[in-house]
């Protein structure tokens, strides 16, 4: 069983190869962290997987009809766009669109999904507040709740923890991990390697559009790769508290 | 240098022409549809240099054929100035700026009012005779006008009501040239009963509820306009269908010339038809 399968995925944007021959498989029960420096192709990989950018190769998601795909995978883009001053509840309900026929009113099941997503993101008391008037972090959580409400077997999230305070960063990663533990799957791009190492079941490292490592956090975060890909020196340990990673020093000038 | 000479030459021409204006003007330019026609009727041989372009349009002008014999102008100060006129004839609605410009350039401009009655037609012919120094010709024309007008005037026992309906829903009141034409032709103007004794914009629904015995509309110009679309409104169409009606081109109606008598004559058959349709 796979939640997502990518085979030899390549993306060329404006004549530049952004992604080269990436093959990847995500199984139910996995929280896969997508790591890599700026411009490595993390966002492009997820957008191509969803069929939002033209690509060569195969993606199990992009091959689906749009309606099926929308029930199979939820997508949380990095740009936190909330165009209109809707209430948080209504915003989260947008995640139920793939489950509703045109013009159909939300059913009890849809409302239950929204309630669960609001509770999971700690937004239950914000339910009737106007989403655009919330703080940046609260808006980010509301959008995560929207993706959760979609109740898709797979969730793809681009930098979901950016701009959140430590408590909500941890809560967000724990939420994705809980989804994975419950048999769903998540592919999450993330810059905070410490969070990635601690919460993901598996890490995928991209560099300059290529997949350079794929495996358990301890196996991926080798000093060589850290040096080669991120140009940093780091501390990694498997502790009684679980795996811990902390970046320490720059190895050379970052270009 | 050459331009300087040209200007000097023009000024000299102007100066030479100026004294002549004291007597009968020798170089007359008309830039208004109504003065065009009066001038063509009354001016002497070679006295009238140019008439406005619209005078050649058979829909607007009763003397389109005659106008074709004159060079046309478009009412622009420059072209009129270059004709070196010693008298320019304009109407009340000629662009004010153009008239002022010509006067600043030292050209005499006679402005004619809009004719509002059949008596105005007489007066304007005499006035045209005076400014052109052609009083005798004007008097002869007026005498003919009076004779023909008297012949047309007959006492009528019954005046069928008629509504004049023009573009934009305008109608004419009794104290207007069109209103007098209507009265002289033996009709009663329905605009008075409808509450528009002085004419103006008469709403369609007022026209419909007035129920005149006949509706007389202006004949549309080519090309489309919203202003004239009203003449094709189902209400007007229905009114025209349900009764004898007439439609006349503007040419004999708009200017105070002897041709208004032709308009009166042409209304005669319509009146007969209305009377015979309505026992």
């Amino acid at each position, binding site marked *: 069983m796979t939640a997502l399968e990518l085979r030899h995925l390549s993306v060329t944007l404006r004549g530049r190869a952004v992604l080269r021959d990436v093959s990847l498989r995500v199984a139910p029960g996995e929280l896969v962290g997508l790591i890599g420096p700026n411009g490595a192709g993390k966002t492009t990989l997820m957008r191509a997987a969803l069929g939002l950018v033209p690509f060569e190769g195969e993606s199990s998601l992009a091959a689906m009809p749009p309606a099926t795909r929308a029930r199979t995978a939820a997508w949380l883009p990095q740009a936190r766009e909330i165009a209109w001053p*809707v209430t948080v509840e209504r915003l989260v309900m947008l995640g139920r669109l793939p489950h509703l026929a045109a013009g159909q009113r939300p059913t009890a099941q849809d409302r239950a999904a929204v309630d669960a997503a609001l509770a999971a993101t700690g937004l239950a008391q914000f339910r009737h507040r106007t989403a655009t008037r919330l703080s940046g972090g609260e808006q980010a959580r509301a959008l995560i709740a929207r993706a959760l409400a979609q109740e898709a077997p797979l969730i793809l999230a681009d930098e979901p923890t950016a701009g959140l305070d430590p408590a909500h960063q941890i809560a967000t990663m724990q939420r994705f991990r809980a989804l994975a533990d419950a048999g769903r799957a998540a592919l999450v791009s993330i810059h905070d390697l410490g969070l990635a190492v601690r919460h993901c079941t598996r890490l995928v490292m991209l560099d300059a559009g290529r997949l350079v490592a794929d495996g358990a956090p301890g196996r991926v975060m080798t000093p060589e790769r850290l040096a080669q890909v991120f140009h940093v020196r780091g501390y990694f340990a498997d502790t009684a508290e679980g795996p811990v990673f902390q970046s320490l020093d720059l190895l050379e000038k970052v270009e | 240098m050459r331009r300087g000479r040209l200007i000097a030459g023009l000024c000299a021409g102007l100066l030479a022409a100026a004294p002549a204006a004291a007597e009968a003007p020798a170089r007359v330019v008309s830039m208004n549809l109504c003065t065009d026609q009066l001038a063509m009727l009354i001016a002497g041989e070679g006295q009238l240099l140019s008439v406005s372009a619209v005078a050649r349009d058979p829909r607007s002008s009763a003397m389109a054929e005659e106008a074709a014999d004159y060079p046309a102008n478009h009412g622009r100060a420059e072209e009129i100035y270059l004709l070196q006129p010693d008298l320019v004839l304009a109407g009340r609605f000629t662009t004010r700026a153009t008239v002022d410009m010509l006067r600043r350039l030292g050209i005499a401009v006679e402005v004619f009012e809009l004719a509002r009655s059949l008596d105005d037609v007489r007066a304007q012919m005499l006035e045209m005779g005076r400014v052109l120094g052609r009083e005798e010709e004007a008097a002869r024309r007026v005498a003919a006008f009076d004779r023909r007008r008297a012949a047309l005037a007959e006492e009528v026992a019954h005046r069928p009501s008629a509504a004049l309906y023009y573009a934009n829903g305008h109608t004419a009141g009794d104290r207007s040239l069109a209103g007098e034409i209507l009265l002289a032709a033996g009709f009663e103007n329905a605009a008075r009963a409808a509450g528009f004794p002085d004419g103006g914009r008469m709403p369609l629904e007022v026209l419909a509820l007035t129920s005149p015995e006949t509706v007389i509309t202006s004949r549309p110009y080519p090309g489309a306009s919203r202003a004239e679309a009203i003449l094709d409104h189902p209400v007007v169409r229905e009114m025209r269908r349900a009764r004898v009606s007439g439609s006349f081109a503007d040419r004999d109606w708009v200017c105070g010339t002897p041709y208004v008598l032709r308009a009166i004559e042409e209304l005669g058959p319509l009146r007969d038809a209305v009377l015979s349709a309505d026992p």
Partner: protein
Amino acid sequence: MTRLIAALAALVGALFLGSLTLGPAGIGPGESLRALVLGDAGPLTLVMREIRLPRAILAVLVGASLGLAGAAMQGYLRNPLAEPGLIGVSGSAALGAVIALQTGLAASLWFGLPLMALAGALAGVGLVLALAGPRGGSLTLILAGIAISALAGALTSLVLNLSPNPFAANEIMFWMMGSLADRSMTHVWIALPFTLLGWALLATLGRGLDALTLGEDAASALGVSLRRVRLTLVAGTASVVGAATAVAGAIGFVGLVVPHILRPLVGAQPSRLLPASALGGAALVLAADMAVRLILPARDLKLGVLTALVGAPIFLHLIYRTRKEMA
């Protein structure tokens, strides 16, 4: 929501009756409505059925179209400044209509007038979307609107000036400001097919516009085809604005004012704003058309004058609010 729709529908109904009973002929309301319904074929029936009824029906058609088109464009561009009149779509439609009238196409083909207006609107809306991009930034939108309006207005003026008809040249005012005076059932029949088609198209947009609240990427991933939404929006807007402008001229600000007022009442959700704005637009144009008859009964005061008096301050307020975005 249902209550709001019911209230708006009742308002439209009341204004519709009010519009029917208002006119220079000064007939009592009961008498006029009886003449309309029973129809004794007298002049009163003629007045009611051929003058007042088409006027009221057109006010509803035109108003609903403009309200709906405004709400749909704003939802798509995610910008409350998007409005068919302001961004030059109505102006382009007027140009198409004037060309149809002056070339004789309108006279030779019964749907020639709305078709050309639709073509003009299509060019206008296509140009705006091309210039403003998928997410219409306020500055580009307003600048594109100024340019397209100016060009369409100039070309309309040119076509009217070239007309052999002496009245046509003075009618730029009608095409730029709009009026429902002296329209007939003919105009209703001309406008109706394209209007209904456009309504049907725009009505399908609710789901897509809701999803677009989250941005294009998220909307796509929710199963919304952005291509289909865009094509439907362009075709639907061009149909309703084209048909409305062909018979009533360009009436500005309706699509701006109505969604602006109603947005808070529908919780800002684009799909709910669509039906509410359609009804609100109908109510606004009916009210404005009654006002022009009450304020200056003897003259043909243009509808766009009133809608601009209401709309321009709101427009300025919105620009003021989006200053931050532009800076």
